[in-house]
């Protein structure tokens, strides 16, 4: 069972309120950009090869009152599944990690992955000790389950089983520094943190 990726993300966008979002390379960034056009509350972390969720964890650690959503692609995730042990260790109550499971490398013409799409990521997360693990294979499941994801909102890990997109979408049209300053200024303005003029 798998959802259409656009329908899945559209539902998350509908539920998107004040969360800060970090997207990973390829389809997740492209789809979030297509559906929202957002340039401030989203950090489009392109091509980090597995580091989107830990980047998001750093934000969640620094700003405990910010709720942070992180999106990983399954291709990136498989490069560094041990990230889950760090997320467990951090135990951040304000971080939700969505794993976009489409079984292909969406950023590279949907070339197949080493596991042929057979990995049970939810089981992997549980084995790493994460307590709040979810797996959504249909839009109905996602609609029913997101209340619980948001309620626990603590080291939450949710697998989104989606179909391959079937093609690439336009990338967010921002270079790195523009993304950095738009996102950082938003955090400074919204949460009162000092980022760019900090003494550190």
């Amino acid at each position, binding site marked *: 069972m798998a959802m259409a990726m656009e329908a899945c993300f559209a539902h998350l966008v509908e539920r998107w309120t004040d969360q800060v979002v*970090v997207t990973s390379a390829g389809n997740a960034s492209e789809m979030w950009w297509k559906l929202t056009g957002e340039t401030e509350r989203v*950090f489009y*972390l*392109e*091509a*980090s*090869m*597995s*580091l*989107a*969720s*830990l*980047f*998001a*964890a*750093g*934000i*969640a*650690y*620094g*700003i405990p009152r910010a709720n942070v959503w992180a999106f990983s692609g399954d291709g990136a995730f498989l490069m*560094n599944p*041990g*990230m889950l*042990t*760090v997320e467990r*260790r*951090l135990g951040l109550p304000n971080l939700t990690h969505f794993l976009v499971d489409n079984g292909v490398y969406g950023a590279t013409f949907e070339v197949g992955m080493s596991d042929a799409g057979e990995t049970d990521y939810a089981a992997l997360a549980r084995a790493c000790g994460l307590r709040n693990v979810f797996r959504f294979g249909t839009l109905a499941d996602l609609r029913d389950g997101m209340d619980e994801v948001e309620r626990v909102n603590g080291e939450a890990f949710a697998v989104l089983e989606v179909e391959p997109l079937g093609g690439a979408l336009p990338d967010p049209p921002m270079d*790195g*520094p523009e*993304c*950095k300053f738009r*996102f*950082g200024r938003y*955090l*400074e303005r919204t949460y009162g*943190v*000092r*980022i760019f003029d*900090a*003494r*550190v």
Partner: protein
Amino acid sequence: MAGPDREIAAAIAERVAGAGIELVASLPDGWIAALIEEFEADARFDHIPVNREESAVGLCSGAFFGGRGSLALMGASGLMTCIYAITKINYTYMVPMTIFITMRGRLGDRAKFHVSNGLYLEPVMQSIDLPYTVIDRRDGLDEIGRAVAHSRTISRPVVVGFTRDLLYGESG
């Protein structure tokens, strides 16, 4: 054989705290074992052991946007595995970060398997224009604060490398 010097580790931690660092993400190298224990025990720091060095790059880069000073602590070999993460995240997005490493492969290193680091560590850092400073004496520890500040100035990572002689308390 005596291990890494705890007094030196404490002196390094003191400089790190003075530079405004709160989060330390680490993966061990034998030379920094005492330093890791120091960060773990010191209430001024949140010490997070990570699964691989790239994870420290991701976590510390995010912590910058959380307004928190952070440090990625690793061995020389760990830094060698982080080149992609550093160039992709920290260079592309201009995110500052402080990285501590061991200067493996230099005179005094008795581990044969670190010969490659002796040959290539510094040339690799130079090849990507990654600023670094090497501290080999206790009276050089003030470089730590300067390195942290320099990273913020240039909006890029700065590396501080420690020699075995320093970390084992065998330097001046």
